């Protein structure tokens, strides 16, 4: 309907003008539809504008779409409005005369919803395809992409010749091909366009192809001539016999079967004096008894007979079930099928690649969250249940910095080292005050650090509330790296991945190339011997603990950027982190990397098998880890020799 009106709109614009009219007068004819627009009424307004030989229609449409049209409630006059504090600057729609009012009382804003806005944008496409402003041309093209229609084809083709910008030109050509493929009138041109689209992964193209390939299901005694059949359906393969028979019934090609509910309602309807079909109602408490009573009714001619299996089979045999394309031309659907096959192959590759990227990203998050834990656990054999809360402290540090420093780039650059320092300090304090006293009681360290975790979590709640706090990434981290419509990954995830790599490198460097690292490794392997060699294990423990906690703080900023900052975010990561460390093997950076990768990839793999239930994926992942530990109790990368002792 809309398309038709719209075509008329284009034609009428070119037609000679009968009599002059004002825009305001036309709008008054549709005052309700302009003031509270709906997709049902917007067509009429646009159609009436199409008849009108007045200036300023594109401007009005743009204003209307942008919610800048207001109505003065006293007399219903529409204005184009710029809000100015509490007041409004009104522009007369016809004369362009400006007036200012101090208060918006007495005016009501027309608020077209997104659906109406899309229709208006569609109407505007005409005017904007050759607009000097490139952003408006792009907006017009986006509008075509979102809502392609046949009548856009001619204006689009007409605008291609004069397009100065190479990118926009390419986009126009692409859209022209898509529109041709879907709505073209010339078969050869359509097939050529379809062939050209073959192998394109974009959602738009896939949408075009699947629209061409739309099918409907039919059943008939024989397939009518001229049907563009997509597939003949085989019973028991493509559809069950029950479904097929239901289809026959719904098409009135076969008598309906008698269901259990039918039996009950028929019997109920025929109850008389506590009896039905000569049987006492009280005895009808099994399906068999009811079935028998129903058969009596059938024999008496009081109920519809059952459909026998033979009758069913005969009815099914007598008919052909098939799907047919809506598009009648088989040459076009063949071309589209070929294109779809080409696309689906690439799609499979693309999806696998995308899933791999997601898994990598998840693995890097787990790695960041767990690496600090791996260091403390590996070096000191100490379980730090408050590790998750250190992640949270880092995230809140980032949040606080953002409250003080409004520039997101600067605030992130401050937040990262600050989060490290805050959690480093917290870690050292915890080591000095608590953990130092419990080195020979590892189980109790677990409990004591858990006590600290409770305290930290509750303190965070008391200070920041239980509401999630925003941690906003700078603009250059917004958006995503887009290879095509299938393979894309957000920049923030890439940044986390890079951060994880950076820390992997940094930690390896510290451990392998510095004096501190040497001492840490010595203490890891044999604290007693290390001490007798002049290394102060106390100092090493303190620094290691600080380092591990500090990295947790940085991980907190990273996790906060991509998800959320809440007082409970640490608890979400703690079990995962532990499992990463345990699966990977204690006391080894590479082990943690392997553990994080294994868990990340496994989880994504399970999600892929069962995409509708993420919760199940998590359960199975944990089960997998528990079983994995059975077979490699020391993790993937196990320490060898004496250091492996309990």
């Amino acid at each position, binding site marked *: 309907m809309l398309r038709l009106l719209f075509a008329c709109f284009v034609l009428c614009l070119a037609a000679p003008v009968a009599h002059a009219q004002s825009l305001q007068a036309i709008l008054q004819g549709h005052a309700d539809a302009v003031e509270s627009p709906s997709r049902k009424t917007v067509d009429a307004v646009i159609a009436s504008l199409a008849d009108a030989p007045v200036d300023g229609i594109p401007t009005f449409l743009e204003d209307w779409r942008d919610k800048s049209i207001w109505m003065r409630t006293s007399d219903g006059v529409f204005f184009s409005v710029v809000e100015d504090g509490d007041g409004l600057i009104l522009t007369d729609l016809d004369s362009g005369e400006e007036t200012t009012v101090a208060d918006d009382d007495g005016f009501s804003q027309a608020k077209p919803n997104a*659906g109406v806005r899309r229709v208006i944008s569609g109407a505007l496409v005409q005017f904007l395809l050759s607009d000097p402003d490139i952003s408006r041309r792009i907006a017009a093209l986006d509008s075509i992409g979102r809502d392609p229609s046949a009548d856009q084809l001619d204006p689009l083709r007409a605008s291609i010749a004069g397009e100065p910008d190479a990118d926009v030109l390419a986009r126009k050509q692409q859209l022209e091909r898509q529109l041709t493929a879907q709505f073209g009138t010339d078969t050869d041109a359509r097939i050529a366009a379809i062939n050209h689209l073959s192998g394109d992964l974009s959602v738009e193209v896939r949408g075009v192809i699947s629209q061409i390939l739309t099918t409907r299901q039919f059943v008939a005694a024989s397939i009518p001539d001229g049907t563009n059949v997509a597939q003949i359906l085989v019973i028991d393969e493509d559809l069950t016999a029950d479904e097929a028979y239901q289809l026959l019934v719904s098409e009135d090609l076969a008598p309906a079967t008698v269901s259990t509910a039918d039996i009950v309602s028929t019997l109920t309807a025929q109850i008389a004096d506590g009896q039905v079909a000569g049987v006492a109602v009280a005895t009808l408490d099994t399906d068999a008894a009811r079935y028998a009573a129903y058969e009596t009714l059938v024999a008496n001619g009081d109920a519809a007979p059952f459909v026998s299996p033979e009758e069913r089979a005969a009815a099914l045999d007598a008919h052909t079930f098939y799907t047919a394309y809506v598009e009648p031309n088989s040459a076009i659907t063949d071309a589209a099928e070929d294109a779809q096959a080409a696309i689906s192959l690439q799609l499979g590759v693309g999806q696998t690649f995308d899933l791999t990227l997601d898994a990598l990203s998840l693995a890097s998050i787990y790695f960041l969250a767990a690496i600090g834990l791996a260091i403390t656990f590996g070096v000191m054999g100490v379980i730090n249940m408050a590790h998750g809360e250190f992640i949270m402290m880092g995230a809140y540090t980032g949040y606080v910095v953002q409250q003080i420093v409004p520039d997101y780039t600067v605030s992130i650059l401050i937040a990262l080292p600050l989060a490290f320092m805050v959690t480093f300090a917290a870690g050292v304090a915890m080591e000095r005050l608590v953990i130092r006293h419990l080195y020979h009681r590892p189980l109790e360290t677990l409990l004591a650090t858990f006590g600290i975790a409770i305290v930290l979590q509750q303190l965070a709640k008391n200070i920041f509330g239980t509401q999630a706090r925003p941690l906003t990434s700078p603009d250059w981290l917004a958006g995503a790296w887009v290879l095509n419509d299938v393979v894309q990954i957000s920049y923030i995830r890439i940044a986390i991945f890079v951060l994880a790599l950076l820390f992997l490198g940094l930690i390896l460097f510290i451990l392998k190339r510095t004096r501190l690292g040497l001492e840490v490794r010595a203490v890891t392997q044999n604290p007693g011997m290390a001490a007798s060699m002049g290394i102060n294990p106390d100092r090493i423990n303190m620094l290691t603990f600080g380092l591990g906690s500090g990295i947790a703080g940085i991980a907190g900023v990273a996790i906060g950027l991509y998800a959320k900052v809440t007082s409970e975010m640490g608890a979400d990561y703690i079990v995962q982190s532990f499992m990463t460390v345990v699966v990977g093997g204690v006391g080894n950076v590479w082990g943690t990397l392997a553990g994080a990768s294994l868990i990340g990839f496994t989880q994504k793999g399970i999600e892929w098998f069962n995409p509708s239930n993420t919760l199940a994926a998590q359960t199975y992942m944990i089960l997998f880890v528990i079983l994995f530990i059975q077979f490699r109790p020391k993790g993937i990368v196990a320490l060898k020799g004496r250091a492996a002792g309990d």
Partner: protein
Amino acid sequence: MTAASGAYAQDCTIKVGVLHSLSGTMAISETTLAETMQMLVEGQNEAGGLLGCELEAVVVDPASDWPLFAEKARELLTVHKVDVIFGNWTSVSRKSVLPVIEELNGLLFYPVQYEGEESSKNVFYTGAAPNQQAIPAVDYFLEELGVEQFALLGTDYVYPRTTNNILEAYLIEKGIAPENIFVNYTPFGQSDWATIVSDVVALGAGGNQVGVVSTINGDANVGFYKELAAAGVSADDIPAVAFSVGEEELSGFDTSELVGHLAAWNYFMSADTPENEAFIAQWQEYTGDDSRVTNDPMEAHYIGFNMWVNAVTAAGSADVDAVRTAMYGQEFPNLTGGTAVMLPNHHLSKPVLIGEITADGQFDIISQTSEVEGDAWTDYLPESAVLTSDWKDLGCGMYNTETETCVQLTSNY
């Protein structure tokens, strides 16, 4: 408050129980409601109390612990002997309280949008039933936005499960093919949304307009909208309508990424009526914070409390059975215009509003229906379609209209 009691003629305090979590995970949402109730009670006392008696708010903290809700409800009814309870947020907490309320014949006002499929003699549901929120929102998608491909995303618990079941049945009835409805459930607090968002984007490959219906709860929304924005998906490409995101939740988001996405409620703070202005002013004065927002469940308590006050006045006593009888047909003006009416099925008739999220964390109301009558049993699931609830004339909350019998008097829990 005790100092003021001398002003009342009789010594006959009427007790109002407030059963909202003040600690634990739900505190963020429920504390606001507990404060709202205290404000309303205080306001009523300033206006002369009720039946010449002073009202006293008895506030307990069930601490977001579902079994504790049942314990505290029993405590309110037997130890404090309250005349009415305003409380609960989550469905599971309501199901926990139901047996106690029904056993002791208490009276509960439940202010939050919920999944329906329940009718208790002792509960008045002042929040939205599915046909007062979910169904109109989906109608809006179908009619106004022309959505043909639906993604129903939800957190894995009863409200999203039941709502999505109803919506699926409704959409199929409206001619949407089952394969064009994508359903996904995620755990509470889900943060890894990359795969799910790319699944949703991929739905566009069918060539139809895609729309997201979100029953995602709480914090998990943050990551979801962030990922949606990162994937370059704007509200114009794939609109998302949320049933659990209100003004209070938006204060935790960076709303620039959400502009244009939708929410459906019976109330938005941005509603332009004198009643709403007065209510917001009263709230911000009571809390002493002029940045505090109001939201839909607060309006539900506002309407519920005022109706209860009027019903007590009409009945001349705070006795539960008398008040219940007097509740039917009670009318009170909505904050968004129009009048709410208490129906015999213990639900309200309220208008449904759809708002677009704006950059300042508010909603721009773009659609407002006339009053819709809340329906306890949905018309779109076969088992429920035959059921109706009428406590006034039929005296039954689960009445089978086919067999014309009362299925049961107690509610399901």
